[in-house]
């Protein structure tokens, strides 16, 4: 199982919540904006609708009133209604009168298809209609009906009924809206005019114009009865209810909104009718599930895209980091060859490269450190090797024994004293670097012992420039050189030789020379390679010294050997008396340091 990446989680969650937040704001905002817009539109639409319906209905009611006014003023009608009145010319029979009026009524209803019945009732029970072959119902006396009584009571003013079933015609029950008007001769009632408008005309206006959307229209008449309602039967039986309290009886359109339902109402001019449009905006918003589905769809698609993108982005970001982390762990566990292989190119890639450079550097440093450590150990071993050899100690002790047995008391003391000092200096745990003076003192003890052993065969001189007395040099480096000069230079000579030790300054360097006038080296040995170690124990001392100097101070320093073999010209170096006959000079070259 891959280790859980907290960084990836936080990147992923951040983008997820950001997007979710944006969606959470965007979605309801657009929804409410749409809703709001829908409600405004619905209100405008309902008012527009109401205006149109009002105009249409007023057209019909006013038409009925116009017809009633025309008939009420028509001389033929008046003559007929007055009936027995003596003023009526007797030449015109009742039959002729009725035929003329009937033709008139037919002419009116003929041009207006929606006028179903036009009936003129005379006070004595005689009547004229616009239709042939119809009779009044035998079961009812129209004078007993409420509409008739109210019309008479209205004293000649037109009365518009609610929607009703016309029941005066025998065998017919048609839904109509009636305009009735009493016709008077001064205070004397002559008769009543009844005009029936097909109710379908009104209901069609209301139902056709509402049609679309969630809107519908109803008409409330006087006395709060319903003239038209698409669901009149449901309201009568209380299955449905209507907010009649929100209706305003005003001649200009007024809108009231309650619980998302817009009630717009207007009173028509010619009658006591109020037309009301009801728009359920809740339903309208609901009616557009497509909008909602679209919103959700868009939101989901965006969310999905965002999800994938944030997954990819976080992966792209965290994968190289994980790679880097893994490499670091390997490195931490000691694998210096651990490398971060990052394929992307960004800051993390740079980080990876820098990590790789760093590991390389650390690797080099560690390697270097290890080398130095190794050399240090080697140097220590070599330093040990540079110490006084047992062979020398044995010889010296032999000499002391010999001196003691020959009673040379003073010499024994001197030699023993020198040996003691030599041993102490050699065994001391002094620092690696000592002053030139200290090193010279040490080698002096050695020379003193050797001189006592070899007597006249060995001469030596020591010459130190005052300026380099306190300069530093590696301890136990001079003695091996002197030893080398004695055993290889002086000892083979029959007449003894001279050793010159010089410490002086050469530019920024300190030179300590050990010169002798001994036998010198063979020509091929002149270029004695100090780098290559030989099997001969003699030169080990020289090699050690050379190595130790180079280890501490670098390749520029070390031991130089110049020698003139047998038969060769003597060395003529500056600073040396040519008369001394110097054949070999071994120089220690060191940087001039004082502390």
């Amino acid at each position, binding site marked *: 199982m*891959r280790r859980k990446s907290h960084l990836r989680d936080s990147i992923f*969650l951040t983008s997820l919540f950001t997007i979710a937040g944006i969606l959470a704001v965007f979605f309801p905002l657009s929804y409410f904006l749409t809703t709001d817009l829908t409600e405004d539109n619905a209100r405008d639409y309902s008012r527009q609708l109401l205006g149109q319906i009002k105009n249409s209905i007023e057209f019909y009611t006013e038409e009925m009133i116009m017809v009633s006014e025309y008939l009420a003023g028509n001389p033929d009608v008046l003559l007929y209604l007055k009936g027995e009145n003596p003023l009526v010319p007797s030449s015109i029979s009742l039959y002729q009168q009725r035929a003329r009026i009937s033709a008139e009524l037919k002419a009116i209803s003929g041009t207006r298809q929606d006028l179903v019945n036009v009936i003129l009732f005379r006070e004595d029970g005689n009547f004229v209609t616009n239709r042939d072959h119809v009779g009044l119902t035998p*079961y009812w006396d129209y004078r007993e009906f409420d509409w008739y009584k109210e019309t008479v009571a209205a004293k000649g003013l037109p009365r518009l009924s609610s929607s009703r079933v016309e029941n005066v015609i025998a065998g017919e029950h048609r839904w109509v809206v009636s305009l009735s008007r009493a016709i008077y001769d001064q205070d004397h009632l002559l008769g009543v005019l009844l005009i029936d408008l097909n109710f379908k005309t009104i209901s069609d206006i209301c139902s056709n114009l509402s049609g679309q959307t969630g809107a519908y229209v109803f008409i409330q008449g006087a006395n709060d009865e319903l003239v038209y309602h698409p669901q009149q039967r*449901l309201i009568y*039986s209380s299955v449905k209810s209507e907010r009649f309290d929100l209706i305003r009886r005003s001649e200009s359109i007024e809108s009231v909104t309650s619980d998302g339902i817009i009630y717009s109402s207007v009173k028509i001019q010619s009658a006591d009718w109020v037309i009301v449009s009801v728009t359920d905006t809740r*339903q309208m918003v609901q009616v557009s*599930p497509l909008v909602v589905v679209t919103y959700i769809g868009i939101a989901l698609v965006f969310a999905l895209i965002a999800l994938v993108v944030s*997954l990819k982005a976080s992966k792209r970001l965290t994968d190289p980091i994980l790679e880097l982390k893994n490499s670091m762990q390997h490195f931490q566990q000691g694998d210096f060859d651990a490398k971060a292989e990052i394929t992307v190119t960004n800051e993390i890639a740079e980080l990876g490269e820098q990590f790789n450079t760093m590991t390389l550097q650390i690797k080099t440093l560690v390697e270097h450190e290890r080398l130095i450590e190794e050399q240090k150990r080697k140097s220590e071993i070599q330093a040990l090797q540079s110490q006084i050899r047992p062979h020398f100690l044995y010889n010296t002790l032999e000499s002391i024994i010999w001196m003691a047995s020959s009673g040379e008391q003073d010499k024994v003391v001197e030699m023993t004293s020198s040996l003691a000092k030599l041993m102490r200096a050699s065994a001391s745990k002094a620092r690696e670097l000592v002053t030139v003076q200290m090193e010279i003192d040490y080698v002096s003890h050695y020379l003193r012992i050797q001189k006592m052993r070899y007597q006249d065969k060995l001469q030596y001189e020591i010459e130190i420039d005052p300026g380099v007395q306190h300069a530093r040099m590696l301890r136990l480096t001079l003695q091996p050189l002197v030893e080398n000069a004695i055993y290889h230079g002086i000892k083979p000579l029959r007449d003894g030789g001279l050793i010159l030790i010089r410490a002086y300054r050469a530019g920024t360097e300190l030179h300590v020379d050990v010169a002798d006038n001994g036998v010198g080296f063979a020509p091929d040995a002149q270029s004695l390679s100090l780098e290559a170690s030989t099997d001969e124990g003699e030169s080990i001392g020289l090699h050690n010294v050379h190595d130790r100097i180079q280890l501490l101070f670098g390749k520029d320093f070390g031991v130089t050997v110049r020698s003139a073999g047998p038969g060769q010209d003597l060395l003529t170096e500056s600073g040396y008396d040519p008369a001394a006959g110097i054949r070999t000079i071994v120089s220690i070259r060191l940087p001039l340091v004082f502390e």
Partner: protein
Amino acid sequence: MHKKIDRLFLFYWPWLLIGLVLSALLTGLFLPLRPRPYPYRIIAVGKASTQGIAFWYSIAEGMAAAAGEFQMTVDYRSPDDESEVDRQIDIVYQAIAEKPDAIILAALDADRLVEPARAARAAGITVVMVDSALADVEKSPQQSFVATNNVLAGQQLGELVIQRVRPGAKILMVSPSTRGDSLIGRETGVRAVIQGTFDVLPTLDTGGQLSDDIYHQVSQALADHPDVEAIVCLNEYTTAGSARAIRGASLTGKVTLVGFDSSEELIDYLEEGLLSAVVIQRPFNMGYLSVARTIDLLNGRKVEPFYDTGSIVITKDNIYTGENQKLLFPFED
């Protein structure tokens, strides 16, 4: 590489799920809580054609009004008349084959329609009864029932007889069928009120035929029982047929007729006085509520097992008052 992606999604699927649930919650929050106007397919199977039969015309009208509120339509089907039980069963099976969301059924036979209704339920179709239920309401497959409480309506009819006819008189009861649940209810209601007071003849079952045949059957019954003083009819066309039989036998004014439901013809008889009174139902409301409750059911709402749409007594005097006009004259043109 494929494995890596798989593992990635395995690890992140809970977040995907949370995201989806979140979206769903948001959706639920901002969707109106009211039912969404799914265009459900609803088939209504009535007892008779809407052509010229005011009762079924009004039922279909009410159904259309309710469906219209949800931008839907209801497909009304029926046999031509109430004698065709087999035909109605066929219609139901045919409707089931069309896999609608719901079937609204007015059972011509309370027992024989149980099986087709069960088949509909088994096919995952919602079944709501209108006007006439299935037998044994407790175990029947119907999910709701919208109708006149026929027992109460029958009692109203019985009260009319008590108000108009002298106690002990011989009474003829005419029913188009003794199998329909609504008719059984009405008969029960009538008998509960008049049984002890009057001499009630065995119910004349006219076998679902239309008026002409009923005219002959009732005329025969009147001939057989010349001392009948009142006729109680349990539906519209038995009332019409009986009215014609009374007129045919010149017994107007001598035999009191009370009936059920209305038509243009019956209103004429009411105005004339040949028909004394009728108990009418509210078929428009019945149709409306049956569809409204069906949509409720489809939307997962709980509905009552029974809705009573009520019944009204109509006499000559209240024909032209407010609601009654609308009930008695459903055709606007």
